[in-house]
């Protein structure tokens, strides 16, 4: 969708961007990451020609941007900046409609679109359309900033540290909202950030810049698992393995189709089952398969009775859709080495163990080395 070819920018004697080659496929979020002054913002601004490239080419959807009218090009690309940049003299409605108005959309159509977009980010149109930016909180303003960029439904979105100025709690919320929007809209997004955690969370690809050069361009998991050099390893942090926990769903590390017992089974059955699988405990499920409790081997061994009368509560469960970070946090919280995994309705789907998780992360490391 977006292709950069030997893209360079020289300011006087300083080379800000040096021969960058990369391609962002349609519908992906590409995070340009690096310390300040590494050329990531300059690279992004060359895409909508706010900065003219010194050398190299940029193709969007196969068309060379150099041949197009700058103004028309920019109207076809959504743009979000860190300072939000809502126009204080315009109402929220008029702010959202800036690009549709520039494109000459019929007023009714653009105003309906503004209301629709506002409700997409959980702002009540009846309440907010007529307000001015100064009457909104920072988080609300940046939500408007994002939907303003989406107003004319551009295929490409450029975001320059869009959530950098928002407090950490709100930032997480807005990031999640944006990911939800993105999952539905499938825009091609170029996202500038200096925050590795944000990048890991949002990106389908991460491009790491240093001194104007593209050092590594890979999927987030590959960047964390196989940093190309010491700089990348240092930049992603000593705890990069922990960061990877965020990228893997419980589902992927889970042992599916696990052994289980029901309330009316005898303890003997449970013990035999645990011995057979080499487990120290087994989950008791309800009649329809919901996780209800557990029986431990050391508690059940040598005793008689029914599972239903001798079970203990589960120390904790985790949703199959959660990431491994949540799973590990919950293991530490309850001081256990395994967790039962349930789906949103509480049905028992499998279990994750600490060994299973370390093994999974270790396996990816082994792959290339």
């Amino acid at each position: 969708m977006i292709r950069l070819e030997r893209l360079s920018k020289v300011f006087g004697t300083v080379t800000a961007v040096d021969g960058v080659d990369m391609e962002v496929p349609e519908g992906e979020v590409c995070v340009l990451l690096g310390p300040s002054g590494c050329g990531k913002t300059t690279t992004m601004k060359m895409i909508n020609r706010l900065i003219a490239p010194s050398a190299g080419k940029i193709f969007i959807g196969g068309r060379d941007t150099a041949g197009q009218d700058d103004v028309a090009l920019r109207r076809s690309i959504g743009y979000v900046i860190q300072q939000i940049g809502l126009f204080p003299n315009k109402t929220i409605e008029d702010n959202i409609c800036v690009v549709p108005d520039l494109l000459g959309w019929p007023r009714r159509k653009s105003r309906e679109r503004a209301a629709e977009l506002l409700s997409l980010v959980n702002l009540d149109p009846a309440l907010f359309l007529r307000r001015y930016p100064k009457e909104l909180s920072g988080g609300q303003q940046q939500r408007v900033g994002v939907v303003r960029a989406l107003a004319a439904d551009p295929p490409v979105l450029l975001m320059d540290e869009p959530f950098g100025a928002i407090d950490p709690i709100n930032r997480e919320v807005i990031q999640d909202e944006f990911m939800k929007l993105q999952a539905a809209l499938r825009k091609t997004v170029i996202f500038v950030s200096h925050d590795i955690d944000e990048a890991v969370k949002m990106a389908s690809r991460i491009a790491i810049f240093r001194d104007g050069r593209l050092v590594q361009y890979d999927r987030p998991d590959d960047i964390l698992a196989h940093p190309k050099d010491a700089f990348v390893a240092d930049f992603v942090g000593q705890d990069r393995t922990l960061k990877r926990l965020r990228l893997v769903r419980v589902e992927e590390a889970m042992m599916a189709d696990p052994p289980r017992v029901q309330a009316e089974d005898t303890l003997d059955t449970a013990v035999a089952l645990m011995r057979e699988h080499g487990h120290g405990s087994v989950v008791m499920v309800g009649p329809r398969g919901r996780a209800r409790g557990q029986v431990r081997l050391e508690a059940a061994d040598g005793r008689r009775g029914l599972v239903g009368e001798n079970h203990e509560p589960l120390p904790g469960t985790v949703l199959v859709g959660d990431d491994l970070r949540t799973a590990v946090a919950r293991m530490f919280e309850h001081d256990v080495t395994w967790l039962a995994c349930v789906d949103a309705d509480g049905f028992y789907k499998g279990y994750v163990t600490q060994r299973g998780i370390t093994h999974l992360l270790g396996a990816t490391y082994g792959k290339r080395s």
Partner: protein
Amino acid sequence: MLIATLRTSSRLALLAAVFALGAVLQARGILPAMATYRQDVVYLIRGHLWLAAVSGLLAILIGVPIGILLTRSRFRLAGLVLAQVVNLGTTIPTLAILALAMTVLGLGAPSAIFGLTALTLLPIVLNTAAGLRAVPRHLVEAARGMGMTPGQILWQVELPNALYVILAGIRTALAIDVGTVPLAFLIGGGGLGELIFTGIDLMEPAMLLAGAIPTALLAIAVDWLVGQAQFWLVPRGVNPLR
């Protein structure tokens, strides 16, 4: 609460002072004497306002575009030079400007209007430029990134956000303009200066005041009017008054 009390009491004090002044003037017979110039005052106010309006309008029409040009990046160097010239202009006393204008344009309204316009220009130019420079850069950047042309950025983003400061400059400038129009009398321009300067020459305080008081009232009225314009014209989102 305290501020409200202070405000009420100062207002009362002002009323009392005006009343006392009126009483003193009445007792000395100045007020009745002033009343005899009523017809002159009405006639001269028209000329006074005409001079102020024409010079003020010219100053706005010239000053705002100059202020805008000063802030355009391609005129940056020219802008600095121009700003210095305008600044130098203010160091020349108003009377000297009028005298200079008279030597070129002769006696009468044209040279008066030229001098007054030159005088009124400065605050308008400076405030327009200052207002535009104060528009945050990221707003202009956002506008450019969304595909506005330079003209659209000026009209939709820069001017609305600078309007309050621009109007503040116009407000000051017009009040000064109205207050300076009396000097136009010295080069045959007319206006309330006729009563003021003749009153001074004839040592006739009633005549002097019959010109000076309406001049002051006019300046206050113009200031109030532009203040209203500031209140209603500046978009609510960037209006500190609303």
